[in-house]
C-alpha cells in the first residue's frame, strides 16, 4: 500500500457509531455529517494532496460490538485515524483498542467525564463540554431568572449521570437549593411519578440532562401535571425534533448548545445550507461536531503531511486557528476541545432563539 500512497496520498478515517439500536439517530447524524465533510474536503482539496476516505461501521450502541468494529477498521481497513463513538461506554471500549494500536481517536459525541481522565494520549474529544454547560445554565437561572429552588431530572446513562454531577456542583457553587434529583432510564415513557415528587418538593426549575425524546415527554407530562416550572436542558437534547415533539409544552425551554442552525454565524449558515441541500433535513448538533471533527483531521494531515499515527496525533493536539461550525477548536492536555462556542438558547415558536453566547476559552 505504500506505493499507492506515494501516487495518491490517502488518509483513511474510520468512523464508528450507533447507526442502529437505541441511539441510531445520533449515529446516522454523525455519518451524514462526516460524509458531507469528506466530500467537501476532497472536492475543494482542503487537505492539500491528501484525499480523505471514510469507512463506516455500526456499533449498535454496544461497547463490545464497538470495539470489534474499531478493531476491524484498524486491522482490516487500515485506517489512520478513528472517529468513535457516540455512547460513552462504546467510546471507552474503543479507546482500549486505539491506544493498543496507537491510532488517534476523536469522539465527537461522548461527553462522559472519564473519557479524557485516563491519561490516554490518543483520545480527543470534540463534544460539547458539559461542565461549562452546567455552569452556564445554573448561573443564568440564578442571575437572570432569580430562581432559588431547583430539581435535576437526568438520564441514568453516563451522559445523564455526569450531567447530574456537574449540575450539582454548579448548584452548590451558586448557592441554589437542590430539592429533588430523580433519574430515569432511557426508553422510559412515564415520568409522572418523578415529576410529582419534584412538584411536591416545590422546585421552581427542572434541569434535564438527556436526549430529546425523553425531554419532550418530560415537558409534556409536566404540563399535564400542571407544574409551574422553568425547564432547562443541555446540548444532548438540542434538536429540531424537541420542538416538534414537545409542542407548546416545550415552549420557553432553555438549553445550552454548541450549534444553532439559525445562528447568524457564517460557518454555521454554510454548513446548514449544504447539509439541507444534501439530506433535506436539519443537521443535529452531534452532526455539526462530527463535521468539525473531519475538518480538524483534514487540517492535521495537511500540517503533518503524513498519515503516521504519531504525527497525526501531535498535529491534532496542536490544532489552531480553525473557524469551524461549533467554534475554534483547541485541545487541552487531556484532549478536550476547549474552543467550543457555547450558546444559551430558548425555544420560541418553531425554533431556538439565542439568549447569550460565550466563547469558553
Amino acid at each position, binding site marked *: 500500500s505504500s506505493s499507492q500512497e506515494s501516487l495518491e496520498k490517502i488518509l483513511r478515517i474510520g468512523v464508528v457509531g450507533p447507526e442502529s439500536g437505541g441511539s441510531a439517530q445520533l449515529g446516522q447524524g454523525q455519518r451524514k455529517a462526516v460524509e458531507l465533510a469528506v466530500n467537501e474536503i476532497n472536492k475543494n482539496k482542503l487537505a492539500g494532496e491528501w484525499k480523505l476516505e471514510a469507512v463506516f461501521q455500526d456499533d449498535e450502541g454496544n461497547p463490545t460490538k464497538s470495539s470489534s468494529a474499531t478493531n476491524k477498521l484498524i486491522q482490516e481497513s487500515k485506517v489512520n485515524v478513528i472517529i468513535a463513538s457516540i455512547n460513552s461506554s462504546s467510546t471507552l471500549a474503543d479507546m482500549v483498542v486505539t491506544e493498543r494500536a496507537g491510532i488517534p481517536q476523536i469522539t465527537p459525541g461522548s461527553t462522559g467525564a472519564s473519557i479524557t481522565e485516563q491519561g490516554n494520549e490518543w483520545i480527543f474529544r470534540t463534544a460539547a463540554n458539559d461542565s461549562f454547560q452546567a455552569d452556564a445554565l445554573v448561573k443564568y437561572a440564578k442571575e437572570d431568572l432569580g430562581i432559588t429552588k431547583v430539581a435535576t431530572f437526568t438520564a441514568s446513562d453516563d451522559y445523564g449521570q455526569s450531567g447530574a454531577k456537574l449540575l450539582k456542583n454548579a448548584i452548590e457553587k451558586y448557592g441554589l437549593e437542590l430539592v429533588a434529583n430523580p*433519574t430515569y432510564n432511557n426508553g422510559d*415513557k412515564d415520568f409522572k411519578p418523578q415529576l*410529582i415528587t419534584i412538584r411536591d418538593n416545590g422546585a421552581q426549575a427542572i434541569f434535564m440532562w438527556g436526549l430529546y*425524546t425523553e425531554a419532550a*415527554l418530560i415537558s409534556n407530562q409536566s404540563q399535564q401535571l400542571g407544574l409551574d416550572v422553568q425547564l432547562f436542558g443541555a446540548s444532548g437534547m438540542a434538536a429540531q425534533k424537541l420542538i416538534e415533539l414537545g409542542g407548546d409544552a416545550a415552549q420557553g425551554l432553555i438549553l445550552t448548545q454548541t450549534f444553532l442552525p439559525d445562528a447568524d454565524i457564517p460557518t454555521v449558515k454554510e454548513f446548514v445550507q449544504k447539509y439541507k441541500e444534501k439530506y433535506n433535513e436539519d443537521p443535529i448538533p452531534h452532526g455539526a461536531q462530527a463535521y468539525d471533527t473531519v475538518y480538524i483531521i483534514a487540517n492535521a494531515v495537511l500540517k503533518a503531511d503524513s498519515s503516521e499515527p504519531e504525527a497525526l496525533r501531535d498535529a491534532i493536539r496542536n490544532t489552531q486557528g480553525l473557524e469551524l461550525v461549533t467554534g475554534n477548536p483547541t485541545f487541552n492536555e487531556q484532549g478536550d476541545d476547549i474552543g467550543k462556542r457555547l450558546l444559551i438558547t430558548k425555544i420560541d415558536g418553531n425554533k431556538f432563539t439565542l439568549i447569550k453566547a460565550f466563547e469558553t476559552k
Partner: protein
Amino acid sequence: MLQFILNGLPMGAIYALVALSYSFIYAASSVLNWAQGDMVMFGAYVGFTLYQVFNLGFTPALFISMAVVALVGVLIQYSILRPLRQRKAPPINVIIATLGVSIIIRNVALMIWGPDAQLLPSPVSTKPVATGILNITPQNILIVVVGLLLMIIFQYLLKQTKEGKALRAVAQDRYAAMIMGIDTERADRVAFAISAALGAAAGILIAPIFFITFNMGAGIGLKGFVAAVVGGLGSVPGSITGGFFIGIIEAVVGGQISSGYRDAITFVLLILVLWLRPSGLFLKKKGQKV
C-alpha cells in the same frame, strides 16, 4: 400515595392491552411471540403514515392499521410458525424465530421511517381537563376506554364463542383439536392476526402521548410480557390485572422509593409474585393430574 396510584392507571391500561396481545396468542397457539412489542411499533407507524400521507382521521387509521398489522401477523404465521410446526420444532426455536422477526421488523422500520421519533397527533386533547390529584386527559380516557372495550370483546370471544373455545382447544392439544375438525393452521393464523391487531391498536393509542420510534417495541413489549405473565399467560382478566398492577407498581416505586431502581424493584416484586404463584395471579395449575 393515592395520586401515584391514580397516575399508574393509563400506563396500566396500555400494559394491559399489550399483555392481552401476548396472552391471546399464547392462549391459542402456545407461542411466546417476542415480536409482539414490534407489532405495537409497526401499528403506530402505519397509523402515522396513514395520517401523514393520506390525511386519514383517527378511527379509519386505527382500523386500517389494525388490519395491516394483522396481515403481518398472518404472514409471520404462514412463513415462520407453520414450517416450524411442521418440523415439530421445540418451543425455544419458536422463541428464537420470533426474536429474528423482531430484529427484522425493527430494522425495516428504521430504514423506512428513519431513526427519529415521530409524532402522531391525538384525535382528542392530550391536555388535562382537570388537574390536581387526578390528571385526566381526554387521551388517557380514550386509552382506558378503547383498551377496556377491546379487552371485554376479547374476553367474550375467547371464553364464550365456539371459535374462541376452538382456539383454546388447539393450544391444549393440537392433535385432538385437529381430529375435532378444527383447522389448526387457521387457528394459528387467527391468533396471530388478532394479537397483532391488538398490538397495533395499542400502538396507535399510545403514539400521541409517547411518540413513535423504531425501537419503542423493546420496552413496551417487555413490560407487556411482564404484565401478561404476572397475571397468568392466557388469562384475559389476568392480563388486565397484570397490566394495571405493573403500571401502579411502577408509579408508586418510581415516585416514592427510587426512580433509578424502579424497574429493578418492579422485577423483584414480580419474581416474588411468581414465587408465590408460579402460574401468575390468575391461573391455577388446573387440569393436571398424574
